[in-house]
């Protein structure tokens, strides 16, 4: 089974700070990690490889330092990593990102399954998976939290979560899935994997290598533009209710009443 897992390097939520005045992310001192959902996409790919054989390729678009995310994926068992990196890719919205990723996946040759996390925790758009599937002409299912492959090795059964419950869906590979964290528990890197990752060469593909049209990538290829960003203030609203438990509860119920919460 030829599997491509798309991963994104994102700022670690634990180290992220925001500049309230400028309304931007503070870049200094922020650790970069693999997007949490993408670990689950990778784990799904590795489990399928364990059962059916084949190859897992991890693909990431990002600055040169995103190489470390790909190396981490290799340490977990991915067979090869490819970094899509070019200054011209910067500022891409999901339209330009899916164009770029699709170019790379087509260049890799025939693939049975493309796996993505449900969304990246920085942009939170959840749009890259479906958009990429359209560009690759693949059927897709989002928000998968259980999957199995039937005996023919081609048909998949998937469970997709929605507001009311879930759907059980069937499709034939090749296909693209976006996965939830509840799909699996990601493995830890092995010592052997870590050593292999350290030595591994990560090829870097730029716009020319991909044969990408300049006006379809990065900021130039993006339909959307950010006009302003700001940090929302949760104005000093904190009030600690005081006294013994009974007093605190009394004070809370009073505030609930004032806010109209008990009217319903």
């Amino acid at each position, binding site marked *: 089974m030829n599997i491509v897992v798309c991963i994104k390097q994102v700022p670690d939520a634990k180290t992220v700070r925001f500049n309230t005045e400028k309304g931007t992310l503070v870049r200094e001192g922020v650790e970069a990690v693999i997007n949490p959902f993408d670990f689950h996409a990778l784990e799904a790919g590795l489990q399928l490889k364990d059962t059916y054989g084949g190859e897992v390729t991890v693909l990431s678009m990002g600055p040169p330092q995103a190489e470390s995310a790909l190396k981490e994926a290799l340490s977990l068992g991915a067979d090869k990593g490819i970094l899509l990196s070019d200054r011209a890719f910067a500022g891409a919205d*999901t339209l330009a990102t899916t164009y770029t990723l699709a170019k790379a996946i087509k260049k890799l040759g025939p693939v049975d399954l493309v796996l993505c996390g449900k969304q990246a925790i920085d942009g939170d*758009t959840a749009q890259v998976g479906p958009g990429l599937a359209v560009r690759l002409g693949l059927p897709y299912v989002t928000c998968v939290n259980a999957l199995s492959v039937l005996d023919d090795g081609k048909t998949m059964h998937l469970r997709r979560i929605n*507001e009311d419950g879930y759907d059980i869906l069937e499709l034939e590979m090749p296909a693209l899935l976006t996965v939830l964290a509840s799909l699996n528990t990601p493995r830890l890197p092995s010592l052997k994997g870590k050593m292999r990752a350290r030595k591994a060469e990560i090829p870097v593909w730029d716009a020319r290598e991909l044969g990408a049209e300049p006006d379809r990538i990065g900021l130039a290829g993006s*339909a959307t533009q950010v006009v302003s*960003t700001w940090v929302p203030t949760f104005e000093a609203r904190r*009030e600690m209710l005081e006294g013994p438990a009974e007093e605190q509860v009394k004070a809370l119920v009073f505030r609930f009443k004032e806010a109209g919460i008990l009217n319903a």
Partner: protein
Amino acid sequence: MLKVDTEKCTGCGECEEVCTFGAICVQNDVAVVDQDACTLCGICVDACPEGALELHDEERLLATDLSSWKGIWVVAECRSGVFAPVTFELLAKSRVLADKLSTDVTAVLMGHEIESRAQELILHGADRVLVIDHPELATFTDEVYGNILADLAKKERPEIILAGATAAGRSYIPRVATILNTGLTADCTGLDVRAEDRALLQTRPAFGGNLLATIVCPGHRPQMATVRPHVMRASAPDPGRKGDVIRILPGENLLGHRVRVLESVKEQAEGPNLSEADVIVTAGRGFEQEKNVELARELADLLGGTVGATRAAVDAGWLSGRSQIGQTGVTVSPKLYMACGVSGAIQHIVGMQGSEIIVAINKDAEAPIFDVTTYGLVGDVKEILPLLIRSIRKKRGL
């Protein structure tokens, strides 16, 4: 018009494979285009390894002739005969935006045996409703819903398309935007228009709500956004409103899909679903044992809300993964959020800090959850919740 350079074409079939409209097929080793079915999306042009396909320039120009795109569309969502509340929220918002732009509001209603529901959309603010009623639409599939909406938008040319950021909306609306080669802004919490250039100003949270951004789509049409449920306010139905209901038959070429729905299961929900709930009572590690989680359920029931969970409560097996709030779970913004026995790891906070009123109950007065709290109570949930439940019951005369 889509043209095939027969000299370059090798008949490899890549274009046929990627065309979601069945508009291109290989005959006698060369690609042949069905111009009626073709929506000029250009996906095949990108896919062709030989560069043998070309969209004629006048078509591309037309696609970006901004002033020829008019009106606001709201994509209605009706699940098992019930409109998602966000549908009415979007109609109310669109009404305001349309008045600013001096244009009209169209609702798009897709489903099976659904035409009778069109009137409700008019009462809630639509000037006309496009109804696509077909057996193939009885169950939701990304391909059919997405293809029909994309095809309609190509023909009717709305300047704005809004849909709910629901499970279905966030899955198939990106398909539509990609086919239309336009911008899409996910999960918006604010919308406005700028009259001078008719730009849709789309505000959305990023980094789990730590950053807000306003986004525009200047050079492409339609301007598309999915909108977070429960943020905008629906208006009461106006029985005096009149509008047109237009029935549209979908072309056969739009009805193909490769994902089959074998079964749709409704799970016994504990109250309203998280993203639409007014009140959420979240249980964290502080409950110590599964049986104590009953207290959270009792309080949620009393307040007409639903129960949420932290990662720890899910890992402990007390609550299902679908109740998890936070970075790898659901992001919520109810009117009242009660974090009970929740310490407030950043991964949890990013999923709930947009809530209107946040109450936290925790034994540790230094717990980080108190940093985002409206009202903080220091104490054991096992002691405080029974008191609170009793006190609310008493106030209600129960």
